[in-house]
C-alpha cells in the first residue's frame, strides 16, 4: 500500500544539512502561512525553531481554539491481556520477561467496565499484547460486545489486523483504532523488534490504512519517541498523518506523542526527548495539521500535562492503570509502563476546568 512510497521520497533527506540552513526569517514566515508543506513542518522541528517556542505556541493555541474550542476529551485504557509473543527491546510485556501473564475473562472484563463506568468515562481504549493464540480476534469481539453495554465509544490498541477483521470488530461496536509504528526508521525498527510477528515492518505500517479502508471512524497513530532521532520520527509521523487524512477525508485521524519511560528491560540506546522538545513536536504538528487531534497519555507527569492543554491537546487519558485488571483493583499486576500522572478521573476533570477548558466525557455513541 501507499504510505511507504511516500516515506521513500524523503528517505535520502539530509536532516543535518537542512537544519543548518534554517534561519529566523524562515521560522517567522512559516508561522504566518495558511498552509505548510512537509518541509515547512520539518523546519519547525529544527534546532533553530526551538528558540521560537513561544511564537509557535501562540500560533498553535490560536489554531487549536479555532478548530477544537476549549475542550478536552477524556478516555481510559483497559488492559485485557499481557500475553505477548513479541520480543520488543523497549516493552515490559516482552515475551522474554518473566512476568505473570494474565488475560481477563468476559466476567472480569465486565467488572472492569463497571469500575470504569462508575467514574463517568464513556470512551474506552482496550489493549492487549500480541498473541493471536491467547487473545484472538474472536476474543476481542466478545469483549467488545460486553463493553458496548457500558461505553459510547470503544477503541482498540492491539496487534495489526487485516481489513476484514477490522470490519468485523466495527460491526461489534469498535469505532476507533490506535496503532503506533513505534519507529519509522526501518533499521532501528529491525534493531528493537528482535523477534515475533511485529518484526514485519510493512504489515504494521499499513495497518492504519487498512482500518481507514474498513471505514473506521477514528484512527490514532504515533511513534514511540526516543527509539530513534526524535526530530526524524516526529517528521515521519506528521507525514503519515497527513497522508492518511488526505487519502481518507472522512476519517478522524489523530496522533499520540508517547515518549520512552523507564520500564523493565535493558534497552539503553535512546534519544530521550526532553520536555522542551516534546512541546516543540506538539506545536509543530498542530501548526502543520491544524485539524488533527492530539492525544497526551498519563506517561507524562501531571503538572507538565496541565501546561500542555492550551497548546493543542484534544484528548487525554484519565484514571489510568496499565496493568491487566487494574481498574477493578483485584490484582496488582505488572504495568506495561510507569505512569506519570496518577490522578483520578475527578481530579483530572477539576484540573482541566481550572485551566479554563471543558472536560468532555462523551463525543460519540453507538449509532
Amino acid at each position, binding site marked *: 500500500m501507499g504510505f511507504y512510497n511516500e516515506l521513500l521520497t524523503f528517505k535520502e533527506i539530509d536532516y543535518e544539512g537542512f537544519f543548518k540552513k534554517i534561519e529566523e526569517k524562515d521560522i517567522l514566515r512559516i508561522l504566518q502561512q495558511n498552509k505548510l508543506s512537509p518541509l515547512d513542518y520539518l523546519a519547525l522541528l529544527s534546532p533553530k525553531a526551538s528558540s521560537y517556542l513561544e511564537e509557535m505556541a501562540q500560533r498553535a493555541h490560536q489554531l487549536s481554539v479555532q478548530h477544537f474550542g476549549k475542550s478536552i476529551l477524556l478516555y481510559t485504557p483497559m488492559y485485557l491481556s499481557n500475553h505477548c509473543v513479541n520480543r520488543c527491546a523497549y516493552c515490559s510485556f516482552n515475551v522474554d520477561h518473566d512476568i505473570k501473564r494474565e488475560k481477563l475473562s468476559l466476567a472480569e472484563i465486565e467488572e472492569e467496565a463497571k469500575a470504569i463506568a462508575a467514574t463517568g468515562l*464513556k470512551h474506552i481504549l482496550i489493549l492487549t499484547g500480541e498473541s493471536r493464540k491467547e487473545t484472538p480476534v474472536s476474543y476481542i469481539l466478545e469483549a467488545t460486545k460486553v463493553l458496548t453495554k457500558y461505553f459510547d465509544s470503544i477503541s482498540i490498541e492491539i496487534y495489526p489486523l487485516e481489513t476484514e477483521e477490522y470490519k468485523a470488530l466495527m460491526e461489534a461496536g469498535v469505532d476507533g483504532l490506535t496503532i503506533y509504528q513505534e519507529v519509522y526508521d526501518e533499521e532501528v525498527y529491525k534493531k528493537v523488534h528482535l523477534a515475533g510477528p511485529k518484526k514485519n515492518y510493512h504489515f504494521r505500517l499499513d495497518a492504519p490504512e487498512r482500518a481507514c479502508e474498513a471505514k473506521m471512524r477514528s484512527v490514532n497513530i504515533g511513534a514511540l519517541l526516543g527509539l530513534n532521532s526524535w526530530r526524524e520520527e516526529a517528521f515521519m509521523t506528521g507525514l503519515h498523518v497527513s497522508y492518511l487524512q488526505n487519502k481518507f477525508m*472522512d476519517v478522524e*485521524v489523530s496522533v499520540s506523542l508517547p515518549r520512552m519511560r523507564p520500564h523493565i528491560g535493558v534497552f539503553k540506546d535512546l534519544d530521550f526527548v526532553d520536555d522542551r522538545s516534546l512541546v516543540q513536536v506538539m506545536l509543530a504538528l498542530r501548526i502543520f495539521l491544524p485539524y488533527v487531534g492530539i492525544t497526551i497519555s498519563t506517561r507524562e507527569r501531571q503538572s507538565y500535562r496541565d501546561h500542555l492543554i492550551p497548546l493543542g491537546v484534544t484528548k487525554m487519558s484519565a484514571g489510568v492503570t496499565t496493568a491487566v485488571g487494574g481498574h477493578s483493583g483485584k490484582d496488582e499486576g505488572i504495568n506495561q509502563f510507569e505512569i506519570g500522572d496518577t490522578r483520578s478521573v475527578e481530579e483530572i476533570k477539576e484540573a482541566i476546568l481550572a485551566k479554563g*477548558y471543558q472536560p*468532555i466525557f*462523551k463525543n460519540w455513541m453507538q*449509532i
Partner: protein
Amino acid sequence: MDELIIGGTSLKSRLLIGTGKYASNKMMPKVIESCGTQVVTMAVRRVDLEGKEENILEYIPKDIILLPNTSGARNADEAIRIARLARAMGCGNWIKIEVISDNKYLLPDNFETIKATEVLAKEGFIVLPYMNPDLMAAKAMEAAGAAAVMPLGAPIGTNRGLRTKEMVQILIDEIKVPIIVDAGIGKPSQAVEAMEMGAAAVLVNTAIASSDNPIDMAKAFGLAVEAGRLAYLSKVGPERKLANASSPLTGFLSGVGE
C-alpha cells in the same frame, strides 16, 4: 419586529446559537439569556444524559427549542440514525442535519444531506439542513421538506464572515423557506450584513464561545441581528456613486445653472 416562522413555530429572536467550544457548560444559561435566543443547537453525540455536570441539556432552560444536530455523521444513513436517537433521547423533533465527510475543512456534503432531509421530513422531523450554498441543492432540500435551509457563510469555525455572500443572496431570493446563515459569522457586523441582505436568521457559535466574554458577545450578536432585521424591513436606501445633491448632467433641466 416581525416574527420568524419555522415549521409552524413563531420565533421572536432571529439568532440561533450553538453550545460547542465553550470553556464550561455553566456559562450557557447566561449566554442564552443575554442574547435572547429561542433556539439552541447541540451535537447529539455529545449529549451525556447520565452525566450531571456534563449533560448540556441541564443548562438549557425548558422554554428554549432544542435543535439537536447530527455532527459526526459521515453520510445520510448515519445522520438519520443520529436524528432518531435524538428524538428517542427526548430532544424533540427539530433536527439540524450536518453531514460531513471531510475532516480537514468540515464542509457539508449536500448530496447526502438532501437524502437525509427527505427521509427525516417524512418521519415528521422539523428538518434544518446545514449546507454549502448551492441553488440546486437548496431547491432539492426545500422540495424534500426542509423547514429552513442553512447555508454556510464561510468554513465553520473560521470567523471569516460572509465569504459566500453572492451565493447566499441567490438562495435568499429564490428559496421560499427561511434561509439561516450558519457557520463563518465571526463578528456582530457580519451578522448585521447577513440580516440586511434578507437572511431570515443567523446561527452563531464559535464567535460567541471563543470570545473573551461570551455573555457580552452573545448580547452584541442579539442586538446585531435585531438591527439587521429592522434595517432590512425598513428597506435600506439604494447605493449611489455620486452625492445626491449634485446632478451635473441633468441639472439644466430644472433650470439650475442657466
